[in-house]
């Protein structure tokens, strides 16, 4: 006997989103780091900053840290992203 059942999922598709323009080169650019604030991010981002500056010629690296590692970044931090050419939203543990 056929059973008619209902879909339990949210049936929603990800809202249309447009990707920011991709950077062709990071030379002379500003890169932002949004850290979740966990212990492991400190040495990771420090190393990444050195690589970005020395190997890719990044001009400036801006560090920001979320106040709660389990919650989205504060609106002020998200607002700052538009001033940067690239952003690394790192999850470190």
């Amino acid at each position: 006997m056929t059973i008619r059942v209902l879909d339990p999922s949210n049936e929603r598709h990800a809202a249309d989103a447009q990707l920011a323009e991709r950077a062709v080169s990071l030379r002379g650019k500003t890169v932002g780091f949004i850290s979740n604030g966990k212990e492991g991010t400190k040495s990771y981002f420090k190393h990444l900053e050195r690589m970005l500056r020395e190997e890719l010629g990044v001009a400036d690296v801006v560090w920001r840290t979320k106040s709660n590692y389990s919650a989205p970044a504060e609106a002020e931090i998200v607002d700052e992203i538009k001033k940067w050419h690239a952003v690394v939203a790192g999850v470190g543990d």
Partner: protein
Amino acid sequence: MGPQIVTTHEQPTSKPPLTSKVYDVADFAAAQELFHSNGWTDGLPVVPPTRPAVEACLQWAAMAPDQLLGVEPVREQPITAEKVAINAVMAGCLPMHFPVVATALHAMLQEEYLLHGVTSSTGGCAALIVINGPIRLEIGANATFNALGNSDRATSVVGRAVRLALINLMDVRPGGIDRSTLGHPGKFSYCLAEDEEDTTWEPLSVVRGLPLGASAVTVMAAMAPRQIMNEWTTDPKEILETFAAEMRANQLNYSIYGGNYAIIIPKQLREHIQAAGWKKRDIGEFLYERARVRRGDWATVGKGSVVRDRADRIHPALQSPDHLLVVAAGGPAGGFGAVIAPWMGSKTKAVTAAIGACVDCAPPNT
């Protein structure tokens, strides 16, 4: 932190349509394969969610299918009564269980619960659900033997329905949003009722600000229960010292930060504490003072590298006495109890919400 009241619609005069996609399957076994292959289960068989079963849940709770129980705040995912009812049926819920499920999810969608954080964390907590008020008796929710072990239909299906809703409505699947390193068995279902008939203490929901006689749920992002035993004293302080020691152990071995802790006190130990005239508030004050550790003690459990220059800093397990959730539950014999630690300090907070599905209840002061 405060209690939330779930308001319900008036009983609809005509049945509003369900809008979920429909699948026709050959039989019960085919339904299982459909649900398992789509990742819609927790691994156990599910009850096929048919339209009549889902409509019966909505009708019982007097909810329209599109009634919003809340919006998942990070990805802005609306959580509707229809979708929750589908997941409740799958979990094995009867219509009478559905208001408890709906209210638990509504509570979990409050900002202070930090739903995305607690469900996506590597920490691996589960939603502890404590049921208070008359609805416990109406649905037969267990508060005695095996209280934390899902020995009855009501608590088993309520807790399971919440998990299935997280999986299907918020993509909280292991490896997806759920990044738990270990998780714990409470993820299948972590629900119990308070034994209000066999205690002199106020129900948890009343302690947390709801009126006596209101049905309610309290949700908490919780780690696995840590069982304690002390059958060798009748002194409340000595009994509670054992609970305090377990809380301190959790602080050192898991997370040092203070937050909502729940403790489950079964009858044998409860009667000694009650006989001495102690209320839940007294327990909270005692454990607030006793359950605290010195940061430097991290060095004794292998965490010396994070003590730094703050060895003398004192960390209480509770930020204040009222952050303790005392629950009277458990079988009548045995000098046991349980400490249930928060997922991660005070980043998440327990939420208590009234179950507002009783459309026949008289309004206040009549």
